[in-house]
């Protein structure tokens, strides 16, 4: 069967004994193939790379600004339904609209008259609902933009670029990196996973896509030790060229930066017999414990929390949740399963940052491309709609319900919720209040969209 994801890091599975034996020369090719390639490089790299190599540009930047704010951007793909996620105060009207789809046992949220889907109670300390109760979350119900486009791809594109324009353009965080990033540190703009998020695309500055330190390593068969160093030097020299054209430029940049990322992350690859350099101070859910396909998301967030504590100079990181939120059918189960995975992973992430004492410099923005039709459809789901949900999370996030909950009795001309806050208002507010930089240099409409308090 075509499973949705490949087994994580298939190429770095190795037993402790087997890894040790790698150091005994000569190593047969068969043997290394059995062991996996990640194992070989991690042992070799950790032995030969000095701290000087590791620190390089990344740590210079991190050292220069050890408390620089970090923005973590979490995307929930598909269009998360507002009503079943944050259940409105007017339950009677809600129940009429939703019929059998409705959430029957929502959780109270301290100090508010809305309630949460019970799946948001999953995870450490009561999950996302628990974080809200402890003042770590500000919810943004009704978020969207005027005349919402119900296409996943148009709407996503607007959120990704920060412009209401279907034409191609760089991501809004890519534009921020263009203004405030450096020319030599790919970690400044990092996507978790194997592709660079459209949020970061289009930047002329380095950016990285990383699943884990082990997954960033690469090994060359039959070329060892100093010969390998020499080989990499020749390879990297070619990659140093900057050809014209979008395709060649992207290939050569990725080639250069992939070698840089591998070198910088090599010391963080777990070695047998030694403590895991990225071991977490909190109990993360085991990947299998996160239903709704939350496992990759949870694992990537775990790696991110650990890397944020290292001197890598990460300024913005993007990550996509594994859940499926385009709930045209069977919304009750699909949404619950998706939100459970999100809640479990985000609760562990926030607890991890707090335990590492780096939470005060990390703000997380969670978003989805649109909301859903208030009235349920006949498939036990909801169709694309307007007025979705987003939230800011962190020890310094402004907590509470930060925008007006849409009225359930008057809809827009297409039977959708009326939008109560523009996502660009939130972007502009985050840039100014959190990143401490101007909003208009990144968002062309920053002057028109107003501001909202998102940082306490």
């Amino acid at each position, binding site marked *: 069967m*075509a499973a*949705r994801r490949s087994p994580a890091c298939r190429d770095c599975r190795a037993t402790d004994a087997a890894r040790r034996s790698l150091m005994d020369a000569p190593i047969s090719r068969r043997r290394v193939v059995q062991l996996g390639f990640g194992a070989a490089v991690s042992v070799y790299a950790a032995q030969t790379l000095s701290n000087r190599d590791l620190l390089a540009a990344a740590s210079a930047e991190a050292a220069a600004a050890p408390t620089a704010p970090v923005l973590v951007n979490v995307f929930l793909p598909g269009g998360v339904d507002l009503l079943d996620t944050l259940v409105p105060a007017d339950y009677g009207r809600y129940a009429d609209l939703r019929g059998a789809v409705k959430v029957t046992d929502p959780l109270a949220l301290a100090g508010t008259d809305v309630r949460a889907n019970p799946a948001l109670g999953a995870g450490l300390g009561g999950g996302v609902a628990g974080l809200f109760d402890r003042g770590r979350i500000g919810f943004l119900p009704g978020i969207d933009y005027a005349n919402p486009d119900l296409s996943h791809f148009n709407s996503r594109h607007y959120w990704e670029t920060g412009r209401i324009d279907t034409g191609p353009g760089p991501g809004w965080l890519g534009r921020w990196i263009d203004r405030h990033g450096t020319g030599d540190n790919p970690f400044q703009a990092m996507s978790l996973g194997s*592709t660079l998020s459209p949020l970061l695309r289009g930047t002329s500055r380095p950016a990285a896509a990383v699943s884990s330190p082990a997954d960033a390593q690469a090994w060359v068969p039959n070329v060892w030790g100093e010969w390998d160093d020499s080989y990499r030097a020749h390879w990297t020299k070619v990659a140093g*060229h900057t050809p014209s054209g979008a395709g060649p430029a992207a290939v050569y940049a990725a080639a250069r930066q992939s070698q840089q990322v591998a070198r910088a992350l090599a010391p963080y690859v777990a070695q047998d017999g030694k403590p895991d350099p990225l071991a977490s101070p909190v109990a993360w859910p085991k990947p299998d414990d996160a239903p709704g396909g939350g496992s990759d998301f949870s694992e990537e967030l775990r790696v991110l929390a650990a890397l944020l504590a290292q001197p890598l100079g990460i300024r913005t990181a993007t990550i996509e949740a594994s859940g499926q939120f385009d709930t045209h059918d069977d919304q009750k189960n699909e949404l619950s399963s998706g939100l459970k995975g999100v809640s479990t992973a985000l609760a562990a992430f926030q607890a991890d940052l707090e335990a590492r004492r780096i939470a005060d410099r990390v703000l997380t923005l969670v978003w989805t491309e649109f909301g859903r039709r208030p009235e349920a459809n006949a498939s036990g789901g909801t169709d694309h709609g307007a007025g979705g949900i987003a939230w800011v999370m962190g020890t310094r996030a402004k907590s509470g319900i930060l925008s007006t909950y849409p009225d359930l009795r008057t809809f827009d001309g297409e039977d959708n919720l009326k939008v109560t806050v523009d996502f660009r208002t939130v972007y502009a507010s985050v840039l100014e209040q959190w990143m401490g930089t101007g909003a208009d240099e990144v968002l062309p409409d920053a002057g028109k969209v107003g501001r909202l308090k998102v940082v306490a």
Partner: protein
Amino acid sequence: VEVTPVAAPARSRSSSWTAAHAERLLWRAGFGGTPAERAYWHHRGRGATVSWLVHGGHGPHGARSMVGAKPRVDGKALDPVNVWGHDRLWWLDRMVRSQRPLVEKLTLFWHDHFATAEQETPLMLAQNKLLRAHALGSFPDLLTAITQDPAMQSFLSLVDSSKDDPNENYARELMELFTLGADNGYTEKDVREAARALTGWQGVWKEGEPLRVRYVPEAHDDGVKTILGQRGRWDWRDVLRIVVARPEHATFLVTKLWTFFVGDTPPDKATRRALARTYVRSGHRIAPVVQDILSSPALYRKLDRPAMVKWPVVQIAGTLRQVGRPIDTDAWSWLQEEMGQGLFDPPSVAGWDWGAAWMSTASMRARFIFATYLCSDAPVEVGKHTASVRWNAADHVRHARKATGDPWTSAATDAELGRLARGFLAKGRTPQGDTPDYIARLTQAALRHFLLSGPDAQLC
């Protein structure tokens, strides 16, 4: 359909049809070629090559439909339905061995265009067969078939969408992604009206998956609808007919096909109009449009500086062809995903992002690892007696090129390969006691890996 190349003498070895032209065309219209295949088509000329690609017939391997060793993993034949990743290997094998490379390439195009995911393997394999059968045929026939396809209907909630409450999912993507393009001449109202017209499909379900779908007239909304300005008691066939007849459809589809084969530079106005005309006049057939695109001078621009980023599966299948390696490991299944393109699992109904978006540090690392796997086994692996201590640097580069199917490289790469070989050989006997024989093999291993993993190997 007659072959009518847009320009140039068909059978000629003049500068209008060089080996580089043949190499470019084989990559863009298929999955590259072996050095022998490139030489064969260079000799035959552009017209014959395009004709063979579009229409099939006798090629370098006669009339055989599949050429080369059958796939075997762990000593066994593939089991696409039951073993993880074997569905992907099964298709990859067709890309490697099929003598209708353009058919496989367009099947891949349609898999991206009518992107479907999260469905059971038998349904996905059935859909794949459907896409292949219509790959170069009539677009309306393809659209009719895919609209009735259980995997598609299940993915986009068309199955069980009934008159009481039509589901808009399929109607929206039909216009936005499949036929017209986003915001291209339709409104939200058109989507909702089309959704009504598309009602009537019901599934025969087993364990939450539709085994098959059937049309149930009682579930269909037979009222009057207005779709794209046309009023009538429309049903699903009418919707497909109405959208395909729009002028926006022809422009949208020919532009997408152009981008697929030619790259990021969109066709100029006159070219787009000519392609749309060819498409409409042929009765909305794919082959004539593709034939014109493959014959267009724009496809052969900058032969010395390829600018298209190879799709991950094109890189895998093409490199396996180039080095002459059959499907013999399931590594290609998970590597294609790490490279950013897991077959049968597109990231969304919009398919994959092409071009520069294929590249990231992680996907480049996966492409590097792909070369590592290739260099770890026959035929690319450097065995005990494959490198000679008598070879000089130029000999080494020549042998490495031969072992890797002589891929295109830039002048910068050529120069660096030479420096690498000279540097390695100059080290001579090392303090660790490495023998000349060992150094010869190291040199050869490094050169081969470079040719398959370097930035130039990602471009075509």
